[in-house]
């Protein structure tokens, strides 16, 4: 892995004294695609909103977010404004409400071109049309004058992607980009993101609650639970040899595509509330492999294999052990 493009270290966020992120360490290399999975509320969106300074003022943020060597957390507004949309772009879950209803599509794209590439007038309009072509919107020239409410959800998400591409970012953070869309459209948007990454060489962080989506699109997957990353590994490795009991639980809840039909295994219990976090491992109360040592302290990530780390004191036990627990 080459030098990291973005490095998060000990990133913590709390709202009104309630911790939402409890120390995130994550780095993204140039051109890399990283998936961030977890249940809703585990902090996967908050991680990147915090990194880009997009959380409301009442959020308390500590730790470090570095882009190359520039610290973003205490950065001045004009520095952040250059980074946002220029070096790191972000798209969101609900494309229909993520576009400003009173501005035409074209204006919303050219605004980004003006800010990050100093383009204006006809040149910006031509580039905006090219971007709409690039994200696969038919009849792009005419669509520039359309309003967001005149487009479908999938088309609006394509427009959002075009806006994100306008600043030629080195990293695109896609926060549940397909959750609000029909299944068929989902696949198209994911394919588009893949193609764009291949064509532009930008890095991609794909946030999703859907393991399947992330597995298909990303080289590396980070699994989050209750405000921490509990396991990270190359996609194939994560699926073949999950080390954290939570990841195993998630995989156990997926229906297998081949082999005999089996009952899907649900993880017992629920995610602990922020004000009732267990003292040790947050997953301990639901964990089938729980031992008393789990309650002593939140476990650090340990290396399981090259590029594969898990925050579990029992992660390095032989696999047979785990299978027994989740049979």
């Amino acid at each position: 892995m080459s030098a990291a493009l973005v490095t998060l270290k000990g990133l913590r966020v709390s709202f009104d004294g309630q911790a939402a992120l409890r120390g995130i360490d994550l780095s993204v290399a140039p051109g890399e695609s990283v998936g961030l999975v977890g249940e809703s509320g585990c902090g996967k969106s908050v991680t990147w909103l915090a990194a880009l300074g997009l959380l409301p003022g009442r959020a308390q943020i500590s730790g470090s977010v570095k882009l190359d060597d520039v610290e973003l957390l205490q950065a001045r507004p004009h520095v952040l404004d250059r980074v946002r949309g220029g070096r790191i772009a972000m798209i969101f879950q609900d494309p229909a409400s993520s576009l400003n209803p009173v501005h035409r599509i074209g204006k919303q794209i050219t605004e980004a071109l003006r800010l990050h590439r100093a383009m204006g007038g006809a040149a910006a309009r031509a580039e905006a049309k090219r971007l709409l072509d690039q994200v696969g919107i038919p009849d792009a020239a005419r669509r520039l004058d359309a309003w967001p409410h005149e487009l479908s959800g999938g088309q609006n998400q394509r427009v959002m992607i075009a806006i994100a591409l306008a600043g030629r970012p080195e990293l695109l953070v896609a926060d549940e980009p397909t959750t609000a869309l029909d299944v068929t459209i989902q696949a198209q948007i994911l394919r588009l993101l893949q193609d764009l990454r291949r064509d532009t060489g930008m890095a991609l962080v794909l946030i999703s609650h859907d393991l399947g989506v992330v597995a298909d699109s990303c080289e590396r997957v980070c699994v989050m639970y209750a405000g921490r990353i509990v396991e990270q590994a190359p996609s194939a490795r994560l699926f073949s040899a999950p080390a954290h009991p939570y990841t195993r639980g998630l995989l156990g809840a997926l229906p297998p595509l081949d082999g005999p039909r089996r009952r899907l295994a649900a993880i017992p219990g629920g995610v602990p509330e922020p004000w009732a976090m267990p003292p040790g491992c947050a997953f301990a109360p639901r964990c089938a492999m729980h031992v008393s040592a789990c309650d002593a302290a939140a476990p650090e990530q340990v290396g399981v294999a090259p590029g594969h780390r898990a925050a579990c004191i029992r992660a390095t036990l032989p696999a047979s052990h785990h299978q027994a627990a989740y049979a």
Partner: protein
Amino acid sequence: MLRFFGSRLLRAAVTIVMVVTFAFIVLRLSGDPAQIIMGADAPPEAVDAFRTAWGLDQPVWLQYFHYFGAIFQGDLGRSMRDGRDAIVLVMERIPATLALTIPALLIKLGLGIPAGITAALHRNSFIDRAVMLMAVAGFTVPSFVLGLLLVLVFAVQLGWLPSGGQESWRHAILPIITMGVGGAAVLARFTRSAMLEVLGQPYIRTASAKGVPWRAVVWGHALPNAAIPTVTIVGFMVGSLIAGAVVVESVFSWPGVGRLLVVAVANRDLAVVQCILLLVAATMVTANLVVDLLYGLLDPRLRNQPKRATGAA
């Protein structure tokens, strides 16, 4: 667009007719103008003669019919007190009223909207709390109380400004402030909540995420959206330019339309009251019509039926 406008126009006309009809009926049910104008101890023959002269002896439906017939010929009736055309009496008073309500409207807009925006942008801060405290005080205190309070302080105690009358521009200051403060308070609260609503929308986060500086996010992305609900309340204020000063004109003895209305109602001067109400309804309805048109300009979603793009994403 034309059809939209046509239906709105028709609705406006119906509203005006309903207001005028309602006023016509209520006025005739609530007292006998002949008795009031002629005085309680006038001889019965004189009262009867008055009734016949003004057509008050006819059945109400016939009076109504005549009244509407006359309106369409541009005749709004004459004052029963001095026999002059009601419309002339009313028109004479309009400049005086506008001399109060237009400056007051400017205060409402110039004070209320910036205060609301500032409060929203500094939500839960000291500024926000201070603005909202003043706004609540501003619109919970009725205008006659505020008016009397201002008179007490600035006319009686300090002697800086006159307490009533219309002799100079200085006489207009207290009534204008009285009206402006209440309206500014309403507008500040309304603008604040409209801004807060908009600032919480995902497209504001999108604008920040694409690197738009915060000032430009507020001006270019938040305000145009927050303007849409705010226009409603401003339209209402514009609509009450003619009739919004009834109380304040009475408190400050300002000879405007509002005072004329109070006097005419007390005297059962039917034609004058009806003329004023017709005018008020017409202004209000026109303001609403303009608001509807502005909605279309401000919000593309309301402009016409969306021509949803067909085909796949």
